[in-house]
């Protein structure tokens, strides 16, 4: 049994701990979004939820023993001036995968836009209900709140 557990940890958790942490963070965010009563807390949960997904994507792009996806000045000029076929100079194991980074730049932007809009709406809610607690708002609507 102990051996089995150790084997499980070695096979599944050690090489993939990033993926495990992203699931944990995502579930923290999801739980907060569903159960928190305060609107701002819900939004913090939403931000945690979104960054967990970004963490997942960035983890896809990581390669062991590779650098950031920007060519140094030397590499750049070598190729351009001598016109060598690129395969000899750059191999794809040297650099991290740039595509997930690009996707996540977009996702971060979408995240901050959603957050800004949600904050504006929660300010409006506070302006007309005088509170940010969901149950207090629903209490105020109760007399006419047929659903």
């Amino acid at each position, binding site marked *: 049994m102990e051996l089995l557990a150790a084997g499980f940890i070695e096979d599944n958790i050690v090489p993939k701990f990033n993926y495990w942490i992203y699931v944990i963070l995502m579930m923290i965010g999801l739980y907060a979004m569903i159960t928190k009563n305060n609107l701002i807390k819900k939004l913090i949960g939403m931000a945690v939820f979104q960054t967990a997904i970004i963490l997942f994507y960035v983890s896809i792009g990581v390669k062991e023993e590779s650098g950031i996806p920007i060519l140094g000045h030397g590499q750049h000029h070598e190729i351009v001036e001598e016109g060598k076929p690129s395969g000899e100079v750059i191999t794809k194991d040297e650099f991290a995968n740039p595509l997930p*980074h690009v996707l*996540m730049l977009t996702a971060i932007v979408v995240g901050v836009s959603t957050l800004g809009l949600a904050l504006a709406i929660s300010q409006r809610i506070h302006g007309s209900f005088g509170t940010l607690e969901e149950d207090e708002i629903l209490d105020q609507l109760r007399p006419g709140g047929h659903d």
Partner: protein
Amino acid sequence: MIWQFDIIILILMVVAAIISLRVKDLLGATMVFGIYSFLICLLWAEMGAVDVAFTEAAVGAGVSTVIMTATVFSTTRRSRD
């Protein structure tokens, strides 16, 4: 990529996320959320995603925290959970 750093930052991130969701004062929660964003930014720089780290530093830790603070100031700091 240095996996020791990676683990430390990831654990700190989980801790920061939980704290920012449990603090009763909304201003405090916002500040801890700023810390969370900085930790993420550090993590991405460490994972080789420099552009993403740069964006996160500017957006997540900078603008997001500022606009959240602005909202907390112009509404209320009170929170029951």
